């Protein structure tokens, strides 16, 4: 049953440019995929490790800015992409060492500050980042000669990345390390007694989460061909956290649903209401108040009588 739904969904996604041919919608779909990847990465920490971070936009931004800077200084696409991911992971390691001393609100605060420091550097180190003006890149990459300037080609490339990330996260959450990580969310003290190194497990989770966030940052750069400090702002951090929470942290597809929802609100609402952040903020507040588990668990509970958590 599950396998056929999965196959059907993937087929629908692959064929999207055919049943939704308008380029405008294809582009929106690409964006949803990119933000879904970001949300999936953040969820590794928020949902599985139980550590709410407001600093992942820092990692997202570091990847985007690294690639942007290298591309505008003559580096090849491959070099730029690899350097961007490497730097994002290195930064994630630093973030982890600084923030994993704490949990809960202290963790939130430390990651908030780290994210804001990154924002501050993007905003003020004008010589390198061009500050508020941002950095524009000349072209999207052309892996194996396939030009991604075409919206449909870019969509399929984004879809490929998305499916890859979903697959990797899926395997991870069902693996011994992933199961151990999820257990540390509930019972860190007991896990220590059982012989687990809780700090180190969280550290690896942070690196994994950082890598995915960096990948999302790269994709974002390729999509917009531009990066500015706004990508690292607190509102962006709140937005991606909302995607995770709205969809349902701790589930595999929750963040994906959340990303689609937030972006849909952004596009639909902004057609009717100029200030769609009010809608977004309201949804955020309502979900935290009434549906802290997020929409996916709530909806699934409606579909089935007994719900066993996806391992």
């Amino acid at each position, binding site marked *: 049953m599950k396998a056929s739904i999965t196959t059907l969904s993937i087929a629908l996604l692959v064929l999207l440019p055919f049943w939704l041919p308008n380029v405008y919608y294809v582009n929106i779909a690409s964006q949803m995929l990119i933000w879904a990847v970001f949300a999936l990465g953040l969820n590794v920490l928020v949902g599985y490790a139980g550590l709410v971070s407001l600093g992942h936009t820092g990692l997202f931004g570091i990847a985007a800015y690294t690639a942007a800077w290298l591309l505008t200084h003559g580096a090849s696409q491959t070099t730029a992409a690899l350097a961007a991911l490497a730097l994002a992971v290195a930064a994630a390691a630093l973030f982890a060492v600084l923030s994993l001393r704490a949990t809960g609100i202290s963790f939130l605060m430390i990651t908030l500050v780290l994210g804001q420091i990154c924002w501050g550097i993007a905003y003020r180190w004008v010589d390198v980042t061009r500050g508020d003006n941002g950095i524009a890149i000349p072209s999207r990459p052309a892996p194996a000669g396939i030009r991604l300037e075409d919206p449909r080609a870019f969509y399929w490339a984004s879809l490929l990345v998305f499916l890859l990330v979903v697959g990797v996260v899926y395997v991870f959450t069902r693996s011994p390390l*992933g*199961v151990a990580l999820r257990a540390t969310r509930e019972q860190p003290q007991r896990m220590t*007694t059982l012989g*687990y190194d*809780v700090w180190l497990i969280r550290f690896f989770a942070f690196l994994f989460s950082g890598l995915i966030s960096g990948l999302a940052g790269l994709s974002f750069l390729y999509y917009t061909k531009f990066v500015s400090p706004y990508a690292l702002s607190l509102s962006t951090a709140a937005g991606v956290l909302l995607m995770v929470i709205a969809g349902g942290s701790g589930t595999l597809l929750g963040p994906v649903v959340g990303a689609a929802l937030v972006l849909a609100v952004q596009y639909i609402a902004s057609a009717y209401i100029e200030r769609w952040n009010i809608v977004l903020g309201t949804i955020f507040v309502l979900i935290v108040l009434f549906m802290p588990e997020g929409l996916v668990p709530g909806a699934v509970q409606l579909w089935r009588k007994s719900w066993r958590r996806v391992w």
Partner: protein
Amino acid sequence: MAQIVEAGLVIALALRNLHKSFGGLSVTSGVDLVVAQGERRLIIGPNGAGKTTLFNLIAGDLRPDRGTIELFGRDITRLPARARAHLGIARTFQIVTLFQQETLLCNVMLSVLGLRPLRWNPFVRFERQETLIEPAREALARVGLAEIADRPLSHTSYGERRRVEIAMALAQHPRVLLLDEPFAGLSAQERRDVFHLLRGIPREITLVMIEHDMDSALDLAERITLLHFGRVVTEGTRSEVVADPRAHEVYLGA
């Protein structure tokens, strides 16, 4: 170098001059405790005597201010709790909080996994690991829960959960097992079950127990240590302790 053997017995656990204070309050004051291998030791004392703190010190959840802890002659005073788990210390907790959403089997598998290199593997599927499933089922069988191994923890009784906890500790194949009030909150029948369970634990495993429920625990214990205000008041066999006037003082305040 530490004495592993005293009077012909192998010493499993040795606490020497252990001190621990919180703020100005001294909770453990110069505790000396020596447990031989295979022994069944019971630690008793009124509320606030410092029994759980002692367990936390032995397990590594707390660092002592002064003194040493030795496990089979090895100084583990500075070792973190997880390292002590790998050296053979397992413990149960007073408040039974396990992984509620999961099955009994899964809970015990997590316990088995804790000491294996497999716990760092991000690729294979946890549920399918026979190397975890078998020992987990075996541990559950030892505590008499084999039939309900696949039931979610939330669908079990309190008594069954306490047994799961013991299964998890046994699954670690420990050398020293610390049992924190294993009989607390159990019905009479459940207490009998746990009693037989603990009776049946092989001699390779040294048992150290904290308990309030004297009846069941006293029958299991070979030696008893009485704590009061963080100090060892008296120690000995059951009859020795029962006869000791200092024990009377502690419990009757006479």
